[in-house]
């Protein structure tokens, strides 16, 4: 639907779809083994070559200068096969968006401009938390314009892979928090092993301890929440696009299985209860697809109130993805619970996506705050 409302996005859909088929689909189970199996560095490198790590960055910043629509089309297509890579693209894009909102273009140039390898172009970010909800436990001391950071940052996504991280920290004597660019290779940064997580296994996170490490402020002291919310307005839709892709993958798998699996002497798709489950799934997919397209369009064309309405779209799609992927397993019965099919992974990934950008109930309340304003 996204490419129907905006045909210019078609090439991105084709590119990402091809990438998903060639690079992700067949290796899904193996990639999902991380951290108990190897990380898919090769796939990441090719995603970098394809420009996926700089979708929303302007061309002069080393990106491909696209907006929310292209980001969503790519995330949606990739997530049908394996949402972990989408998690990596999302996290980096979120950090980039915050940096852009902060006007920290030099920093972006330093990171992406000098990146010869994919890992260097990544930016680690605690993508599953809204720092306004759970106050950061990293603190920054300002000594004559030089910031020194210490504390802990839990669940820093890509922290084990990226050279730089964008870390929320509280500046002494200041209200709120600010974002700091931190060199994760600096002495004083200690990383845990990869955190074993529900989903997104190949989009790993680490817990980080920071002890007297220099940080470069992005934006100004205390403006973290404003930057985060501005970036989140666009990125909520991107998170919904991942959920939407997962839903499509789950539905397609369930439908094709139901057409082939026999129980009671017929293909299970012929039992009306199974059809009902599939019908409910299909409704959710189509509603997600349509509303996502609408939200992208509204965002790109800056329709009045798009910021609020797109939050509602994202909340609904992410909730629906959790329900739908539960059914996606159910249609496959015992086989759906096994790693051999993608359904169990989609179920885990959908729940993971729901937590992007903060706690689900708090996102609802935040949305309502805006509605009530």
């Amino acid at each position, binding site marked *: 639907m996204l490419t129907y409302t905006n045909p210019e996005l078609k090439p991105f859909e084709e590119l990402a779809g091809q990438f998903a088929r060639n690079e992700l689909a067949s290796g899904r189970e193996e990639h999902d083994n991380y951290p108990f199996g190897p990380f898919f560095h090769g796939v990441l490198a090719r995603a970098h070559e394809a420009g996926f790590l700089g979708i929303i960055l302007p061309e002069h910043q080393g990106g491909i200068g696209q907006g929310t629509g292209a980001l969503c089309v790519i995330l949606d297509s990739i997530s049908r096969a394996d949402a972990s890579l989408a998690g990596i693209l999302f996290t980096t894009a979120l950090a980039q968006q915050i940096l852009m909102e902060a006007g920290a273009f030099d920093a972006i140039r330093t990171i992406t401009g000098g990146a010869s390898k994919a890992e260097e172009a990544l930016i680690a970010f605690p993508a599953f938390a809204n720092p306004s*909800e759970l106050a950061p436990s990293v603190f920054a001391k300002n000594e004559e314009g030089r910031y020194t950071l210490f504390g802990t940052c839990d669940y820093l996504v890509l922290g084990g892979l990226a050279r730089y991280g964008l870390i929320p920290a509280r500046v002494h004597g200041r209200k709120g928090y600010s974002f700091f660019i931190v060199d994760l290779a600096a002495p004083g940064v200690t990383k845990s092993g990869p*955190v074993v997580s529900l989903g997104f296994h190949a989009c790993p996170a680490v817990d980080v301890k920071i002890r007297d490490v220099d940080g470069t402020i992005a934006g100004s002291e205390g403006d973290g929440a404003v930057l985060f919310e501005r970036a989140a307005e666009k990125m909520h839709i991107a998170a919904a696009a991942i959920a939407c892709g997962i839903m499509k993958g789950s539905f397609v798998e369930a439908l094709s299985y139901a057409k082939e699996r026999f129980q009671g002497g017929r293909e299970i798709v012929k039992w009306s*209860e199974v059809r009902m*489950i599939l019908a409910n799934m299909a409704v959710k997919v189509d509603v997600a697809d349509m509303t996502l397209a609408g939200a992208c369009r509204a965002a790109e064309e800056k329709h009045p109130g798009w910021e609020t309405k797109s939050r509602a779209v994202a909340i609904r799609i992410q909730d629906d993805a959790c329900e739908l992927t539960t059914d996606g*397993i159910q249609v496959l019965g*015992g086989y759906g619970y096994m790693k051999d099919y993608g359904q169990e992974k989609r179920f885990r990934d959908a729940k993971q996506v729901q937590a992007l950008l903060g706690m689900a109930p708090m996102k609802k309340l935040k949305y309502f705050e805006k509605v009530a304003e």
Partner: protein
Amino acid sequence: MVLSHEFKVLLEREPKFIDIMCSLEATARQPKGIINETKEVVAIARKFNDEVVRPYALELDRLRTEDPEFLPWEFVKKANEWGFYTMWIPKIFGGKGYCMPSMSYFIEEIGSACLAMANLIGVHYLGFATLTATWNMRLVNRLAREVAKGEKTGAPCLISLAITEPGAGTDVEEIDLIDKGKITCHAGKVKGGYVVNGSKVFISNGHISAWHMLIAYSDLKRPSDTPVVLAVPTGAKGFSFGRQEHKMGQKGCPASELIFEDCFIPDELVAMDDEQCRGLSRKTREATMQVIDYVVSVTRAGVGAFGTGVARGAFEEALKFAGETEVDGKLLINHEWAQCMLAEMYKNVTIARLCYVETNYANGMYGFFKTLQMKPMYYCAKMLPKFYIDLVIAPLMSKHFMTKLMRKIGLDGQKDEEIHRTSGWASIAKVVGTDAGIRNCQLALEMMGQAGLRQDRVAEKHLRDSKLLQIYEGTNQLNRLNIFKCLIARSCPQAVVFDE
């Protein structure tokens, strides 16, 4: 006000009083000892959770993720040491003889800490219940005593149940479907026993069980009329283990493929077949469904208890998180929405528990537990000295007439409406408990945000573990259809089930 001749008619009206008030009927009749026994069991389970389950649950989950071939012997040996594999085996068979309903409370407790470990204990009783449901007293006595011996020697002797086939999952759970299914596990009658060919899949505890209650069929064209229940020992010639499944959750508990290639099972290990069914008041087909219902009336309630347990586990993790985490400047527990969410989760647990408890009452009055819960039987079984059991009762169990007698009481003695009542309730308990499990896990994760995604915070493991509950012991769809079949269809004579 109500005339005496109206009384019965009014109570017979749907929903029948007797169907919806099992607990009311049962509480006065059940032996009082059950209460203290249940308290004891819950206390034991809580201690076991503190000492064994919680300290090891995440590690076992991780070990099996790293190496899916790893077998959970360490835990099984611990459970064996604690006496859990004989705890619900009647004393007359060498077990500890705790009352059967108390097992569901036990399972809820263990399930609240780790469903995989609850399964490592509970599935053994799925096997044992299947064996018992055949009322083949000689075989029950033999296997139960082997389990008890395994406890003494420290070599756990577990029993699994193998019914699901690669092409038939739902179909083997329902007599109206089985003849239409792709059934391939064949038990051919030969002199002195049966020869089995075929395979079974997804068998919980397969790789770690010493015995497997195998349901095969002597005529694959008419499986509903020709089921054969066999006790297959691990190591039998022609029997081997295939792959262990790579599951999303409940990783600690292996799910195995069992392969049979010209596997000969002697007559003495035949728990039930067409020939043994002769003389029963029901035809083989109906008797088969009765045995299935007999087992699932207990085990589906057990899965309801698993669901209650995991729903509670998720709730407890969320509560802990809410009590120690500041969100938006104040403790999460002091946000009104969070209090309501926690209350919703608590409510889900409570309703789920009530459903399995009510099913236990139904089983005590009309089903599996009935014989052992009659007051004279209950107290007799408790008080008989061990030497008397060993000298007098145990040898009796090997006599053919005991099997006949128990089948008369257990199978023929159960009315059709009682089968429907217990089976219907069990499906309600299963669906309500397992849906509550998933729902609470989902809510817990929503409440915990990023923390909920981490394996070391347990909630995500609960979510992965709980999804299986909606699938095994008949999918929740099959169980809903069973509720319709057992409790609803009769009020609409034109209704047909499994034949749309």
